[in-house]
């Protein structure tokens, strides 16, 4: 029998094509990432953050001048901007801040006079601090909003806190001014042609005399309120204050107006207006990458990050421990930082710190209250192994973590969150979508060319 092999082969090939296996994609069983994000968005009631427009009001201009003017520091060597640098996400890029007695900026800042005491904490950013969710300031929450409607605060100044402060940011702004290692300086710190007439006025432990520092600062800024300005910067500041608070006279001005102007500047200058996450929530589905979306699902789901990093600012403004240790770190310290305990004196609060908000978090390294982690990935990994240091020893022979310190770690973390390296990378990609970039022209509005005191303006 003759067989036409060519015809047979062709027919077989055809039959194979016709009966070719259809693909068994599991994707059919999965919901699309987009659908899951939509459900997540509904579940967590997510919406874009609401921010105020960047407008140069008179009060903004005054706040801007004060924010960048070193005249507010006892030694004339530190401005608010020194530890809140725009280039470092309005933090300073250092593990812990270096206030008075220093020169240079960010990681390059060094002491020019021997430090009296080291400032113990990492500089926090200032993004969106006017948001309604922001109920406390500082790592230990020592400035707290008690009654927003009545503008009542709980602060270390207690009854001595001046009345009339607009918000928690304004209340917070007072404290670096009366803290020796931040802006106040120390008695005898007379250098670079300036006299520090403020530092001897206050007891840094009791804060008795804080009002005297505030009065002396006003004297620096605007001179004797019942006499003509004796210095040119005082005339400029007088003019700016009166334009900013048009219903007031010179005699009415106090440190409260300094603080309120600073807070007004900060709320307009440091608002996250154009993050890709917010654009996505506003309906632009193309703005985030596939990896960022996967990261969002992990952040809000398996990673449990949302348990504490929630709301539009990504912080619950509550106090938790993630097991960060202070010892065995490049700046050796005698004492462990007890965090929230310093404010409440409640042993249950020991080692707990305020949840840091996460807007622009990719720019604010190093991380944690002591800046002990330089990379965001290491910071995330710390959450996954919060008691990893528990069985390690300090060079002195004692354990790195005390029993109390281990007990303080958040149960959300001690229950054991299991993320792969690839999943951590996805979460970090998502955090990048929270970043905001200053738009063209914003920098020119935010940073003054010159300040009334004519001291150098440093911002990057």
């Amino acid at each position: 029998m003759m067989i036409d092999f060519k015809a047979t082969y062709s027919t077989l090939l055809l039959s194979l094509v016709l009966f070719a296996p259809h693909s068994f994609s599991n994707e059919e069983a999965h919901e699309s990432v987009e659908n899951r994000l939509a459900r997540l968005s509904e579940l967590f009631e997510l919406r874009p953050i609401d921010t105020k427009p960047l407008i140069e009001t008179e009060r903004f201009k005054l706040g801007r001048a004060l924010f960048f003017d070193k005249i507010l520091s006892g030694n004339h060597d530190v401005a608010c901007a020194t530890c809140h640098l725009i280039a470092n996400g309005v933090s300073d890029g250092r593990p812990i801040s270096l206030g008075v007695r220093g020169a240079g900026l960010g990681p390059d800042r060094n002491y020019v006079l021997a430090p009296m005491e080291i400032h113990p904490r990492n500089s926090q950013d200032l993004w969106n601090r006017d948001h309604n969710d922001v109920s406390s300031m500082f790592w230990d929450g020592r400035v707290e909003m008690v009654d927003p409607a009545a503008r009542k605060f709980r602060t270390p100044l207690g009854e001595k806190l001046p009345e009339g402060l607009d918000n928690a940011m304004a209340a917070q702004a007072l404290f670096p001014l009366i803290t020796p290692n931040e802006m106040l300086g120390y008695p005898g710190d007379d250098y670079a042609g300036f006299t520090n007439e403020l530092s001897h006025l206050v007891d840094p432990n009791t804060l008795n005399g804080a009002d005297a520092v505030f009065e002396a600062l006003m004297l620096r800024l605007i001179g004797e309120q019942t006499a003509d300005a004796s210095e040119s910067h005082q005339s400029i500041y007088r003019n700016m204050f009166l334009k900013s608070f048009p219903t007031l006279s010179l005699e009415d001005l106090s440190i409260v107006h300094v603080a309120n102007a600073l807070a007004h500047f900060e709320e307009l200058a440091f608002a996250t207006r154009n993050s890709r996450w917010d654009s996505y929530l506003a309906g632009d589905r193309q703005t985030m990458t596939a990896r960022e979306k996967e990261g969002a699902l992990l952040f809000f789901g398996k990673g449990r990050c949302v348990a504490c990093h929630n709301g539009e600012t990504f912080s619950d403004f509550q106090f938790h421990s993630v097991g960060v240790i202070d010892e065995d770190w490049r700046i050796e310290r005698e004492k462990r930082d007890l965090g929230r305990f310093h404010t409440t004196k409640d042993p249950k609060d020991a080692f707990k710190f305020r949840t840091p908000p996460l807007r622009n978090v990719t720019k604010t390294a190093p991380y944690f209250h002591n800046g002990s982690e330089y990379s965001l990935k290491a910071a995330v990994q710390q959450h996954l192994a919060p008691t990893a240091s528990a069985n390690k020893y300090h060079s002195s022979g004692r354990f790195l973590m005390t029993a109390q310190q281990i007990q303080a770690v958040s149960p959300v973390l001690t229950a054991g969150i299991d993320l792969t390296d690839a999943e951590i990378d996805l979460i970090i990609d998502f955090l990048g979508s929270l970043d905001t970039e200053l738009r063209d022209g914003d920098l020119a509005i935010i940073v003054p060319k010159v300040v009334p005191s004519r001291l150098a303006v440093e911002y990057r």
Partner: protein
Amino acid sequence: MTSGRHHIFEGAKVTLLVCIVSLQVFWLWEVSIQPELKLASLKAPLQDAVIKCANERDYQRRVSAALGGLDGKTFDYLRRSFVISNEPCRQQELFELELLASNVSQAEVNLIKRTTGARGL
């Protein structure tokens, strides 16, 4: 003519042979190869989902045991995160349904689940 009839006859034989071979291939595909492929394609994701789901339930069990140490707001957000992180459990159910639809017996599905990971279910 004889040559023409011969060609038609040969052609018919070839066509018949092709039909028989095609039917055999089709039968082999439908009865044996396709179910095996489908089973293989579902087995791995099922095993993966079983492990992930077991991990998720373990986490939820552990964190529930420590509820006293959580404030209400933290727990509320954590509870909502469970809705998202329970996804592997929903996937597992889907894979199981697909296996059953592929004529894999419940006993075989259970075997896959039991032999998955140290904990199993």
